[in-house]
């Protein structure tokens, strides 16, 4: 293991992070699980690297697009069937076994 370089960030010396390490920390960073010291190293790398900010943004976009997949809606046929199920459940209930 070679000696880790230090880098000055916001007036403090922190151990330098490589890009290879950075990409493994991205999820912990986004989920807010990096310990404070590691968070500073992450931010320091983000400030001095020209590739990793794009990498981080790509991961954010990946998450955003995945989130859009939830917008699908129920098939009309399933919806009709289930509304029928509801109607018969209601009829059954109103015939008298309503626990309330």
């Amino acid at each position: 293991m070679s000696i880790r370089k230090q880098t000055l960030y916001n007036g403090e010396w922190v151990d330098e992070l490589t890009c290879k390490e950075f990409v493994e920390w991205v999820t912990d960073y986004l989920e807010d699980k990096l310990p404070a010291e590691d968070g500073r190293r992450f931010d320091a790398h983000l400030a001095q690297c020209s590739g990793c900010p794009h990498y981080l943004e790509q991961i954010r976009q990946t998450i955003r697009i995945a989130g859009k997949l939830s917008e699908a809606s129920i098939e009309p046929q399933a919806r009709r069937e289930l509304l029928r199920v509801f109607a018969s459940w209601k009829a059954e209930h109103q015939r008298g076994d309503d626990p309330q």
Partner: protein
Amino acid sequence: MDVQTAFPPDRSLIDALRSGDDDAFAHLLDRYHASMVRVATLYVRDRAVAEEVAQETWIAVLRGIHRFEGRSSLKTWIFSILANQAKTRGRREGRSVPFSALYDSQESVEGDLEPAVDPTCFKGDGWWRDDSHPHEWSNTPESQYLSDEVRRCVQRAIDALPPAQRQVMTLHDIEGMASEEVCNMLGISETNQRVLLHRARSKVRRALEQYFDEH
């Protein structure tokens, strides 16, 4: 959680359901059914069966609604019924691997066998090589990444993930469940969940990168 602000909509929905209000039921169907089918496919793998499981879940919801005490949110309650139904169904089909086995396998956290990025993208000092330097995917506005084609690319990449990674990414990033809910639903630790999520997102990012390079 602030009970005052979080529960009134649930409570009025529950009351409306109990009194047989069609609109309330239709509203729940519109809000949750598609998600329920997607979550059910995590256990049964076949979309038609997942659709059946979701429908059976609604029947169970109606049967239980008078007993539901509102200790969890309505959504959490519905999805826990769904998970139970789907697991039972998966077991009966003999298709789904029991969860504990799934998470004990080497797919889980052991070692660092799966780097987020192909190691050949880095120079000896661990920084990006010039030819694999990440760049902006697109200068065009939001709409371009959100095209149907891009979404299909992401869906395909998620479908191709190993089961545990697919489950975690589907619940956390597609369904927007909090980590804690995902852990409860899958019976895994938070650390394990994060490792699985990390691997999943890294792979889906790679698939998107490839897509944007080609288009």
